[in-house]
């Protein structure tokens, strides 16, 4: 339905047709329609539509349906409200999940950083030497000398873990005496 342009009175035309205006407003509309062709034309259009709608027969509705209509409508509206509340609740629940995920990620990253820091900070102090302990393991399969005056031996210490292969020279050590090399 095309509204009359520029006329504030045109907003009252539908109510005017339905006799829903007070007396004062109705007189204003009557006076305006006498001088405004656009509003008069729109009023004719509204009246024509009204006549068409009134000509359409009412759908047949059983009396008991009208009796339950209000209850059904109320229940349907209640269901709409409940669904809206459920949606709001789901949104509220999602927030803690996101927060938990972020906290876990931060905790994991923090733990990782702490491990790296400990490794970097304490590594030079030798606290992780035991991880590489087998690096200094040495198995001596054979040991011999072809020079007179030397006696070859080997020993492995536990702390520090180290294998020492030593050729005792008679002229320096005075033979093997069971003491550490260099002992006098």
């Amino acid at each position, binding site marked *: 339905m095309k509204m009359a342009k520029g006329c504030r009175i045109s907003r009252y035309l539908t109510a005017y047709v339905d006799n829903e205006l007070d007396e004062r407003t109705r007189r204003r509309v009557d006076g305006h329609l006498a001088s405004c062709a656009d509003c008069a034309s729109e009023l004719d259009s509204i009246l024509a539509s009204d006549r068409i709608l009134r000509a359409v027969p009412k759908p047949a509705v059983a009396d008991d349906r009208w009796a339950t209509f209000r209850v059904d409508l109320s229940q349907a509206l209640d269901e709409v409200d409940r669904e809206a509340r459920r949606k709001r609740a789901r949104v509220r629940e999602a927030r803690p999940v996101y927060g938990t995920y972020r906290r876990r990620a931060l905790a994991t990253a923090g733990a990782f950083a702490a491990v*790296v820091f400990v490794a970097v900070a304490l590594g030079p102090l030798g606290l992780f030497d035991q991880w590489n302990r*087998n690096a200094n393991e*040495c198995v001596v399969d054979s040991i011999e000398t072809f020079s007179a005056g*030397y006696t070859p031996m080997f020993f492995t210490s536990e702390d520090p873990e180290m294998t*020492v292969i030593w050729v005792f020279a008679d002229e320096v050590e005075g033979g093997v005496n069971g003491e550490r090399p260099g*002992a006098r």
Partner: protein
Amino acid sequence: MRRVAIALPVIMLLMVLLAPAPALAKDEVIVEVISIAASSGDEDAESGGEAFVDPKLSGYAKKLRALFAYTKYTFLASGRTETDFGSPCTFQLPERFSLIVEPERMEESEGRIEMMVTLVHEVEGERGEAHREREEGRQGGRQEIVLRTKIRLGNGGTVLLGGPPIEGGVLILALSARG
């Protein structure tokens, strides 16, 4: 997404902890020898306290003091070379000593490097005459095999060899190998 966020740092941590040393070619071995002079002179003994260790040997100070009773450890020289399994490499050492290291193979099961190590001393005069049949001739003197040993050294590990007398003390060698 959450699993990835948790697993990623764990994987990175494992990579850091388990990362092997920079890889070499499969058949290559890096051999390093550090020559040390150990002595126990009277002037050293008078100083008292713990043994003096050359600052260049700071990485070995703790081990040297714990293992030996000398009072002074002086850095003499160091050498480092890359060689293949089956290819001997020779390090010229002070006072006509030389060390021949021949990596033979990598013991796959335990990750040790099997190697033959020979300490040779070039001598003059008639010393060692009785063992001439075992010695290799070389211009300028004879070579005595002071020590020949077959060892299996942990990859990246160090073994100490020593004992031969040198001027004012004894020779100690720190032999390291990494394959």
